């Protein structure tokens, strides 16, 4: 069931801003406060707003659980793969520091920051963000669908 037109209009305004903020949190996780888990939580809160405003049946037309589970498993596989990538030295070794990909070394101390730093950390932020987005959205979507079906039965 949909909510009123006021709620839907405000959702149209708020959801793109929240998505952009969550992607900013994930992609700048190695420079500013934030990271994969926080960005994924913010994204999933926007999905919760969508589910509340438009009804779970309408959201389920364009967002299926098996797509979300594929996203979550791929995030976990990227994370484990990056962890195994440093196995030449030790598990979870940061093997990209100093290389050509995300490899710049910032000066020690306060500095404005450079996005092309951090070694393997931005990629792990991306993987964990993908995993948390898909996982929390799948939890919200399945619970909303289950409860709305119960309403239909009664």
């Amino acid at each position, binding site marked *: 069931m949909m909510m009123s037109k006021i709620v839907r209009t405000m959702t149209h305004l708020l959801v793109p801003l929240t998505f952009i903020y969550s992607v900013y949190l994930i992609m700048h996780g190695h420079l500013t406060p934030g990271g994969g*888990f926080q960005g994924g939580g913010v994204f999933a809160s926007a999905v919760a707003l969508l589910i509340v405003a438009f009804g779970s049946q309408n959201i389920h037309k364009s967002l299926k659980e098996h797509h979300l589970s594929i996203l979550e498993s791929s995030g976990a596989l990227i994370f484990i793969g990056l962890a195994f990538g440093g196995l030449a030295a030790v598990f979870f070794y940061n093997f990209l520091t100093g290389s050509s990909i995300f490899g710049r070394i910032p000066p020690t101390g306060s500095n404005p920051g450079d996005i092309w730093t951090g070694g393997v950390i931005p990629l792990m932020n991306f993987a964990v963000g993908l995993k948390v987005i898909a996982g929390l959205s799948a939890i919200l979507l399945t619970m909303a669908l289950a409860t709305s079906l119960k309403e239909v039965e009664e």
Partner: protein
Amino acid sequence: MIESGILHIIIPVLLVVCALLVAIFKDLIAAAITLAVFSLLLALEFYLLQAPDVAIAEAGVGAAITVAIYILAIRATKRT
């Protein structure tokens, strides 16, 4: 820093008040919304203690996702 000192007293008191209200309220929806207020105050306290990472996680997960899941679970029960 006197304002920060006052806030460090006010916010924990409000946290305790919100936690007591969650336990006292008979209406489950009201209790869930008070839990959201509790999480937002806790996020503000984390920010004042200079932990912005934890503040963002608490505001996103604690105030939005947890309360949404609680309200979805309350929706499946019968109101008497």
